[in-house]
């Protein structure tokens, strides 16, 4: 029983929002892929920062500033260690995954891509891993090509291999875990193939890092991006990991204070990474809160035990949903992280979401910022259940029961 190894009932007490109600029903939060809830440890770390430590980082010789700078750089080290990056200097703070991809596309991409080059994205990308590359292609006269999916909803590795062989691919931009299908992509293998063909690989880890251990040295990818708010941390903070050899020669993205060696009106000399890529005052409270989130995850047992707990939940949810004949789960990937999307015959996902919400169940309906993928499945909207570490079997029971009720009361007679 998962409850023995993972004390979810105790853990739930760390999340104040889980004790609130919606329409007099206890909240059941199943939109963790959009954003996760925050443990008290995170909320308190922000509170403490503003109450006792607030000061600018990397400037100011006074103690308050020195203390904050130390906390800030320790957070960077913590993140590096959490994802097994070789060095903290390879972690760059951004607002989130979206900004991180934009940074890579506009610095590394701008530097590397020339007319006629090929950039590969997959059919299951989130808009944030499509549009920046599309724009780069437009600027450079490069070409965006799409890695197709198999029938089951996995990356078609055969097709991927062919694309790499056939075309001058320079960059592969790939989602680690699909925010719609839940599919876990074989990043290590895809990286190896990309590197064999002298392509770089940028991995969107926004949905992966909260569900499993990710290891930069094992994956060997060139870039990896994450959002803090999707891993139980604050909003407005995220980071990217990059290979040192690439970061060292990349031009800055945003420019301004803190990323500079010298400025004259004629010329500016930039600092080394990571500072080069962190112009202006950063989201300090966000960085410290993210640090606290990672500490919290470690304290409750670390990613392997969270993954085991969520895997058991997902299996349970999957089985219960399969008993509902009008429910169709989208895709059947080989490995799935704890989220899935579905349609219900005869009831629109938005009506389902409103119905469920009425009973305290927060689930997302829509295109999930993955319009091309939805078009591929000939859908305009899906209902998504995405689980987090604090979800329980009882919650799944309630959700499935309400879903069934919705089918009966809103569906075709």
């Amino acid at each position, binding site marked *: 029983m998962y409850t023995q190894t993972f004390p979810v009932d105790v853990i739930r007490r760390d999340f104040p929002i889980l004790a609130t109600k919606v*329409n007099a029903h206890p909240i059941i939060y199943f939109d963790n892929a959009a954003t996760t809830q925050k443990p008290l440890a995170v909320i308190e770390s922000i509170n403490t920062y503003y109450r006792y430590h607030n000061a600018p980082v990397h400037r100011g010789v006074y103690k308050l500033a020195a203390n904050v700078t130390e906390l800030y750089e320790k957070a960077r080290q913590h993140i590096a260690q959490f994802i097994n990056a070789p060095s903290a200097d390879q972690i760059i703070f951004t607002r989130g995954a979206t900004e991180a991809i934009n940074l890579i596309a506009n610095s590394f991409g701008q530097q590397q891509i020339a007319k006629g080059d090929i950039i590969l994205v997959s059919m299951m990308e989130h808009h944030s891993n499509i549009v920046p590359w599309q724009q780069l292609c437009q600027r450079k006269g490069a070409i965006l090509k799409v890695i197709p999916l198999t029938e089951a909803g996995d990356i078609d590795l055969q097709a991927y291999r062919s694309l790499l062989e056939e075309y001058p691919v320079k960059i592969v931009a790939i989602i680690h875990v699909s925010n719609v299908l839940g599919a876990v992509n074989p990043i290590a293998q895809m990286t190896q193939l990309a590197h064999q063909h002298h392509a770089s690989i940028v991995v969107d880890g926004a949905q992966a890092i909260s569900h499993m251990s990710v290891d930069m040295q094992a994956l060997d990818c060139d870039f990896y991006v994450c959002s803090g708010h999707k891993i139980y941390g604050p909003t407005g903070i995220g980071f990217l990991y990059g290979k040192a050899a690439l970061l060292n020669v990349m031009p800055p993205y945003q420019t301004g204070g803190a990323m500079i060696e010298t400025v004259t009106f004629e010329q500016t000399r930039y600092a080394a990474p990571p500072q080069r890529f962190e112009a202006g005052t950063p989201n300090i409270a966000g960085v410290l809160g993210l640090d606290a989130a990672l500490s919290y995850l470690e304290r409750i047992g670390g990613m392997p035990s969270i993954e085991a707990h969520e895997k058991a939940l997902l299996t349970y949810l999957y089985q219960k949903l399969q008993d509902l004949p009008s429910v169709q789960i989208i895709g059947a990937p080989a490995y799935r992280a704890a989220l899935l999307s579905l349609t219900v015959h*005869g*009831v*629109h*996902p*938005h*009506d389902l979401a*409103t*119905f469920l919400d*009425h009973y305290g169940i927060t689930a997302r*309906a*829509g*295109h999930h910022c993955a319009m091309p993928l*939805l078009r591929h499945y000939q859908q*305009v*909207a899906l209902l998504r259940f995405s689980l987090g570490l604090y979800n329980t079997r009882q919650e799944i029971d309630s959700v499935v029961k309400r879903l069934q*009720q919705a089918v009966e*009361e*809103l569906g*075709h007679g």
Partner: protein
Amino acid sequence: MDETLQELYQDLILDHARNPRNFGYCQHQTHTFEAYNPLCGDRIVLSLQIRHDQIEQAYFTGEGCAICMASVSLMTEKITQQSLDEVEQLFEDFINLLTDASLTNKALQDCEQRLGKLAVLRAVQAFPMRVKCATLGWHALKKSCFEKSV
């Protein structure tokens, strides 16, 4: 279903959502507009035949949630054979009914009387995230009648 929800998903609405009226295109279409809600993917194409400032026929196609489909289905029924002036009044009434919480009782009654069956959609007011669903077809109507022609 509990009460508030029941009010939203009344039989009339579910019926129009399942069996939309006037689904298709006018044979002699004079005005059309496609309205799209990027947030949820609802998409409505309105097809009108307008003659001498009167809507002779009103059809629509598209896909969307029950609220969206029922609203536009009921709308096409209502606006057929109405003058553009009347349509403009209906548009205002409908928007007010769904978004203006400060209407006087009198104003509300007048609104509801003019809107007829459409007044059932008043329940959407309690679901602010769904107001856009209910008004999507109406915005298409406004655009096609008053801002754009084929």
